[in-house]
């Protein structure tokens, strides 16, 4: 027995009536019959596996919701995200990720009026708040309750029914990316034409898709490395001084190496508006990055309306106490940092961004500003790195 294509058509019609922006993605799914599957599943190639017996029992509304749910796994690229979380078959994490992914999709489904058959997983059935990402739920699910399996498209692990090749739709990873961006475009257009008609989770997804963000630690590490390297020429070749061995190698002129020691200052906004936990996290992580990049000693400047500087060894950072509170004027801190000797070449500032900034660079150095939370970025003379506050959820692309 194979899937009743007429009923599948009815379900597509029903879904597109509610959610016209899914059209590009929905018509690209290649339906396949898998008797005995018990439910619906997808794989990475946009094959949609349906149990004909189960499908025959769904109402058209159920069916439409199932299609939206399965398409949701593919649009949100749960398979790749499961890989990034190191999901495995044997330790039950595939099952857990599947449930986490279901929770991410289903809280949007409930307000569409289309209901999934049976008792679907939602954040509230798991006792968790709505509107989070699969990764967030994944780390908060202690054990895997036994529920349905949405296939390799939801958790990345191969399933016996997988065809493991692109179906009629011919969807390879790049095409899948094209489809995702096409649906995201349609979602954004629909939302601007009919505000309030698109579920919140889907809007967040559509807006996050366009911009790719990297982990701020990686970004900061790269910035520090690059700036420490270019300001101080960590290990680079120079012809400006002949090599000490050039008399041996004559007539070959080899270059010499230069390695001035980089100096770094960390300016920390200790004003009352910075939350204790965020400040501690940001300082620990930032100084760890600096220490990893080879800065043995650094200037530490704690700053509210006044500033205090101290010279610390990277290995002793845990013992440093930060004092402060009240308002902020980071300019004071920046000037104090730049007035130290040895003069810093790189100044890393940790702040919530709510501070007056000087319009011109306060001195000759490279400036990196870590803004904790949703604060405004620093002026153009500094490079801004956004650090998500522990209270605010990370957007889906922050994980990549």
């Amino acid at each position, binding site marked *: 027995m194979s899937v009743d294509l007429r009923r599948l058509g009815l379900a597509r*019609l029903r879904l597109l009536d509610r959610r016209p922006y899914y059209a590009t993605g929905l018509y690209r799914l290649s339906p396949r019959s898998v008797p005995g599957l018990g439910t619906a599943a997808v794989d990475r190639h946009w094959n949609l596996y349906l149990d004909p017996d189960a499908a025959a029992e769904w109402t058209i509304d159920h069916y439409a919701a199932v299609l939206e749910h399965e398409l949701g796994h593919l649009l949100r690229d749960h398979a790749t995200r499961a890989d990034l979380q190191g999901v495995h078959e044997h330790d039950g994490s595939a099952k857990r990720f599947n449930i986490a992914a279901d929770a991410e999709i289903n809280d949007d489904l409930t307000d569409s009026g289309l209901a999934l058959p049976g008792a679907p997983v939602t954040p509230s059935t798991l006792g968790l708040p709505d509107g989070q990402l699969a990764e967030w739920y994944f780390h908060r699910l202690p054990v895997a309750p036994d529920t349905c399996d949405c296939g390799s498209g939801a958790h990345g692990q191969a399933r016996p029914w997988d065809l493991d090749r692109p179906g*009629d739709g011919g969807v390879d990873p*790049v095409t899948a990316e094209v489809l995702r961006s096409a649906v995201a475009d349609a979602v954004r257009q629909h939302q601007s034409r009919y505000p309030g008609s698109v579920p919140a989770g889907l809007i967040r997804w559509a807006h996050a898709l366009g911009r790719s963000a990297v982990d701020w630690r*990686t970004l900061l590490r790269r910035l520090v490395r690059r700036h420490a390297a270019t300001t101080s020429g960590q290990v680079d070749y120079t012809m400006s001084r002949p090599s000490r061995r050039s008399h041996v190698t004559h007539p070959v002129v080899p270059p010499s190496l230069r390695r001035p020691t980089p100096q770094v200052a960390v300016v920390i906004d200790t004003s009352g508006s910075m939350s204790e936990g965020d400040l501690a996290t940001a300082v620990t992580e930032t100084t760890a990055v600096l220490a990893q990049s080879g800065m043995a000693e650094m200037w530490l400047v704690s700053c509210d309306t006044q500033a205090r500087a101290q010279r610390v060894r990277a290995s002793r950072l845990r013992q440093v106490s930060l004092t402060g509170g009240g308002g902020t004027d980071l300019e004071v801190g920046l000037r104090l940092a730049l007035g130290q000797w040895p003069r810093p070449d790189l100044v890393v500032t940790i702040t919530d961004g709510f501070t007056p900034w000087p319009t011109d660079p306060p001195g000759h150095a490279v400036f990196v500003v870590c803004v904790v939370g949703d604060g405004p970025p620093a002026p153009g003379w500094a490079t801004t790195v956004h650090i998500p506050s522990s209270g605010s959820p990370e957007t889906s692309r922050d994980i990549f």
Partner: protein
Amino acid sequence: MTTTADATLQALTVAIAARVPVLMWGAPGTGKTSVVRELASRAGMHCETVLASIREPSDFSGLPVVRPDGTVSFAPPSWAQRLVEHSGGLLFLDELSTAPPAVQAALLRVVLDRTVGDLELPASTAIVAAANPPEQAAGGWDLSAPLANRFLHLEWTTDGRTVAHGLAHGFSVPVVPEPPTHATTTSTWSSLIPAFLTARPHLHLVAPTDIEQSGRAWPSPRSWHMAMRLGQLAELMGMDRSVVHQLLMGSVGTAATVELLTWVDSFDLPDPEDVLAKPTTHPLPGRADQVHAVLMAIVASLRHRNSAERWHAAWQVADRVANDHAPDIAATTAIELARLQPRGAAPSPSARQFVPLLREAGVL
């Protein structure tokens, strides 16, 4: 069966055959080096491995030698001379991202012009480089944007199944094919890419602005040309679509490739006006999403200019789609068409067949 890893391997062989410099990005220990050496030996190419990270700029720009007459010549290192002696081969630059910036700058000429100091490498020299992403490499440097733009970037992925099979039976690599001699023949990509850039001129050059992208593929006239050559060659060699996609993405980056493929998808579609002119005979695409796109284009052009005649023609197309493809795709259009009925036009006889379907779907 084509997995992503297979497609990457095939993309690598196309690039070597085309003599386009390739840069493979991947975690340490994933077999980049051994695959390249194996590829070279299977293809009977002489392979020179140069670790960029332990070299200095003069190893690539030539050692400056003061001659008795006071001029300076740039002596090529022995690996370059060996490549000339073997009249070509494969130059493998390992650990590229751990090379200091001055070495990277010196590599620009080697990669682009195949010139080392005063010595020109044979035109048949293939250049392959491997790099670890800076966050995974000890002491990694970001690749400079100009050097990055000269390479085809391939993401080196390994999947468990291939590794398991490889450990048991030995890793297999495809044979680098001979580049077809009739490579001047026009192909789809040599006409599509110029047409795309005419439609989206702003995409011909998008210099990277953030750190994350500067060391990766980005669109420039040079990389578009590279994309075109590789796409053309892969097509002539009968490669899979996913291989072509990887080649495009590795040349001009993901964002530009997604735009290009989106545009190509709609470029394939028939003009709605042509379909309306011959509603019963004009060929329609076979894939559901394309049929849907054509019908939506017809609705849009009716909104723009409507008449009883055009409206009836649109119903005829919907009729055909309902019979030949999927009734539900036609039914979505039927709702739109019903709303667009021009004043004075007789009701369409085709409309009635969609009513039970729409009612059953709970849409009416």
